[in-house]
Structures are given as structure tokens and as C-alpha cells.
């Protein structure tokens, strides 16, 4: 049974595994709101909008995480303003803002010359290079977000389900929307460092989507999404270790595989259940 314990034989890979556990849980929990509120495109936008902030921060010699976060929050605000004042649809505004920012980052990088190499790894993930400090930062961010969401969970749920009734009951819906966006921006920044900006969307969407196929209530959906997120992270680590493939891709493949599995066997909405119900409903042959 050494294949179970082997990955944890080095502190290096153990750190990577713990980082994946934290990020998988974070993505699963927030992912429920991402999926229910139709925010996947926004999350994708954040992962790209980070770029110019990271480039500028690297050029100034500052913290790249902070630069990326500032850029992501600026993107969130920009998207909200653009949607409100330019009369464009939400998705259009998002598309315009984040592609513009990403292009600006690319041009900045070309103009400022090859920078402190940190920028590239920040964007494309450097899971195995995670340090103890990185891990502590991720843990603090995850705990902070968890606490914040716990405090606002009821207004958040109410406004996700029915924003108008929530507003009538006294919830500050617009402020809550912006808070959620900022929390998402922070979560994306922390997660991008581990798995890269191409794949980070999967962490916020796939486990939650799988959980929604199975569960009927928000509390169970969130619990299952967190479990699936963690399972994807740890499973991906095992695949990366034994099959010798890149960790980020392995994590996403495991998450997707779990989704397909859920889709097949979910007792309510799964393909198998639907097929069986159809078979049972067919009249008996004479």
C-alpha cells in the first residue's frame, strides 16, 4: 500500500497537497454561489484581469499577490460601472473589461522587458514551488473568507434566491453583490498561484456543479462541493505523482471525472436514474 503514502514522503509534495486541499475547499464552497448566480464568466474574467496588476507589481518590486488583487478588484468595480453606465449587458461589459486588461498586461510586459520571472509562474501556476509562507497565506485567506461568508450567509442566500424580496426585507443587495465579487477576486488570486489561470475556473465550477446534481438543499450542496473540491485536489496530486503528469491538469481532470461520475449515477438527475425510471414507466409487453 505504499502507493498511498509515497506522495507524502517529501515535504515539498506534502505542501502542494495541503495547498490543494485548501484551494479545493475554497473553490467548492464559493463555487456554489458562482454556479447558482451565473458567475463562471466573471471568475474567468478575474483570472485574466489579474495579469496587469501582477506585471506592474513585479516592475515596482512589490508583492505580486497584492498587485494581482488590486487589479482583480479594479476589474470588479469596472465591470459593475460599465454595465450600469454604458447600457451594455453584464456579460458584454465583463468581456470588454477583462480582455482589455489582459492585453494591457501583455503590452506592459513586452514594454518593461523580461521582468522578475515571478510573473509567469504566478499566471501559469507553480504548485510544486509552494513555500510554507504561501501555505500560511492561503490558509489565512481561506479562513478569512470562510468567516466572512458565515457572517453574511443569510443575506447572501436570500439575495441569491430572490434579490427583490431580499431587498424588501432590508438586505443591501448591491453592496452584497460587490462584496461577493471582491471575495471571489481574492479567492481567484490565491488559487491562480497554485494551478494557473487557465485552469482555476474549473476549481470554482466543476465540484459545485457536481454537487448540484445530487443535493437538494444549499447546506448539503455546499458540504458535498467542498468534499469534491478536496477530493479533486488530493486525487489530482496522486495522479500527478504516479502517472507523472502536470499537477494542475491532473486536478482538473479528476474534478471533471467526478462530475461525469455524478452525472451518471445521481439518484435524482443522473443519466442512469433517468433511464431506469423511463424503463419502469414503460408499459409491460403483452
Amino acid at each position, binding site marked *: 500500500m505504499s502507493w498511498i503514502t509515497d506522495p507524502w514522503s517529501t515535504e515539498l509534495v506534502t505542501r502542494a497537497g495541503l495547498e490543494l486541499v485548501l484551494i479545493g475547499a475554497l473553490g467548492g464552497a464559493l463555487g456554489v454561489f458562482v454556479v447558482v448566480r451565473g458567475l463562471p464568466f466573471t471568475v474567468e474574467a478575474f483570472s485574466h484581469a489579474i495579469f496587469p496588476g501582477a506585471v506592474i507589481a513585479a516592475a515596482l518590486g512589490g508583492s505580486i499577490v497584492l498587485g494581482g488583487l488590486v487589479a482583480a478588484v479594479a476589474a470588479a468595480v469596472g465591470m459593475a460601472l460599465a454595465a450600469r453606465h454604458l447600457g451594455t449587458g453584464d456579460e458584454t461589459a465583463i468581456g470588454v473589461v477583462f480582455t482589455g486588461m489582459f492585453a494591457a498586461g501583455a503590452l506592459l510586459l513586452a514594454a518593461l522587458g523580461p521582468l522578475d520571472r515571478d510573473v509567469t509562474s504566478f499566471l501559469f501556476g507553480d504548485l510544486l514551488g509552494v513555500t510554507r509562507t504561501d501555505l500560511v497565506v492561503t490558509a489565512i485567506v481561506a479562513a478569512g473568507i470562510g468567516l466572512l461568508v458565515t457572517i453574511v450567509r443569510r443575506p447572501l442566500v436570500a439575495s441569491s434566491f430572490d434579490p427583490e424580496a431580499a431587498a424588501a426585507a432590508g438586505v443591501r443587495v448591491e453592496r452584497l453583490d460587490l462584496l461577493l465579487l471582491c471575495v471571489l477576486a481574492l479567492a481567484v488570486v490565491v488559487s491562480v498561484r497554485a494551478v494557473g489561470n487557465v485552469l482555476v475556473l474549473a476549481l470554482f465550477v466543476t465540484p459545485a456543479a457536481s454537487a448540484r446534481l445530487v443535493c437538494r438543499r444549499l447546506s448539503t450542496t455546499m458540504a458535498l462541493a467542498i468534499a469534491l473540491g478536496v477530493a479533486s485536489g488530493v486525487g489530482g496530486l496522486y495522479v500527478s505523482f504516479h502517472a507523472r503528469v*502536470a499537477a494542475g491538469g491532473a486536478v482538473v481532470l479528476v474534478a471533471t471525472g467526478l462530475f461525469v461520475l455524478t452525472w451518471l449515477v445521481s439518484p435524482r438527475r443522473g443519466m442512469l436514474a433517468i433511464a431506469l425510471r423511463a424503463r419502469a414507466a414503460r408499459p409491460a409487453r403483452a
Partner: protein
Amino acid sequence: MIAGRRLIAAAGLVAVAAALAACGSGSTSGADSGRLDVVTTTTQLADFTRNVGGNRVAVRQLLKPNVDPHDYEPTPGDVAAVSSADVLVEHGIGLDTWLEPVVDNAGGDALPVVATTGVPLLGGDSSEPDGDPHVWLDPRNAVTMVRNIEKGLAAADPDGAAAYRANADRYVARIEAFDRELAARIDAVPAAKRKIVTDHDAFGYFAKRYGITVVGTVIPSLSTAAEPSAGDVTRLVSTIRREGVRVVFSESSVDPRLQRAIAKESGATLGAPLYGDSLGPADQPAGTYLGMMRANMDAIVAGINS
């Protein structure tokens, strides 16, 4: 709101104008000063060419320092430069495959020079099927490349043939002197300590020349594109421990986070960054070939002695 729309439109026009202006800025050619226009792909080739051509040539390199040549994307400016060049010096061995569409689009009548003609090659891998391209890290191959460039310049500019030969002779002498110095310094280190780990597999020729063993690489490939897996990294760490490797090197164009983590885990030290794919920035010592080789030498000798 109308005001907002007008502002966006104005900004858009400015952006388009700026983009067009940027496209238009082509190479600074020495055509007016009567010098030979030479375009090279890599920074090493540019340095060789300047040393051989002296002030008879105006050299423009397409790759900037510390830019990874394995996945470089050419710009419209590159196409313009090639179309007005007299000589185009390329590396070969699959390092500048991105040059093909540039040449196709540029037209012009630049004389092509493949600098690595005649260099004995080490085997490649799946990412570099033509062979290991990092030939210049063995100074003897650098000499071959310098001679090839000398021939190419003389063919394009026969009037300068004598000058080119004199320059090349002087430069080759310097390279050979460096080669001897480096060999001596490494010979002084016991063979058992001459084990290193590098970022990607760029130092095959170097290692063969000086009797160093590259025990493993962080990226399991000749190209920088591959990503190491958790399995690769764990195996590398145990190999480092088993072989008693004392130093892990990162590379100048690559983030050292992973190398640092591997060094720490295996008890080795993280050496100074090596230059494996390119020269350093022009205003630094590693901006010339000899400066770069010297920096590599200092880093490696210090690392294996630690």
C-alpha cells in the same frame, strides 16, 4: 450616457492609431551609413556577429535577452527587419523554427547563414527532434559558429573579407583562452563532486566538454515547455540525495521557486542562475557570449565546490 460613449470612441481611436504607429516602426537599418544589415535570431549569434563584423555591420537581433527562444512569437517588426536585411543569421537545429513564417512573409533577399553548420550534435528528445540545440555552451562549437558567420559575412561583403577574418581570428583566440581557463578550474574539483542539477536539459554539450554530470533536470525535457509532475519532482529529490549532488541551478529566464523548493527538500544549495538559452541583458556582463560563459563558469564552480 452619450458622454461615456464619446469617451470610449475617442479612446478606441487613440489605441488604433498607437497600434498602427507601433507596427510601422521597422528596424533601424544601417543602410544609409553603408554598413551591412545583419539580422540574427538569438542574442548569442548577435554577439558573435558584432565581434566578427566590427563596424562594417549593423546588427539587429530578434530575440531580446532572457526571452525564451523555445516559444517566441515573432512581431510585425521582425518581418520588416528581415525584409530589409542583407544577411540573416539563424541558429538552426530547431531553435528558430518560428523564423520560417517570418521569412516567408518578409520576402527580401537576405543571405541566409545557418550558424551551426558542421557542429557535431547530441541526440534530441520528443520536444527537440532535430537534436539538442544548446551547442554554443561548448566553446569549441562556438568557434565553429563564429567561423560560419565569418564565411557568411565575407560572401555578402567580399570587400570586407580580410577584416572579417582578422576579427574572427582575434575573437576565436579569446574563446579558446577562456576554454582553457574553465577546463583548468573544473579539473581542480574532484570528479565525485562534479554533479549538478539544472533547470532544463540545456547543458549537455557543456557537461560533456568539461567532465561534469548533469544528474537530473527539474523540467524533464530539452525544452522549457514541459511542466514537472509531483512524481518527477519526488524522484529528482531522491536522486539528488542518492547521488550526493550539492547544488541545484535555476535559469536566468525561469522562476526559481521550484528549484529553491527542490534544493531545500534535498539538502542541496540553490546555485546562482545559469544562462542556458540566451545571453543576459546587454548592459550587464552576461550580455556578451564570453561574459555569459564566465558567469556560468563562476556559478558552476562555486556550486560544485560548496
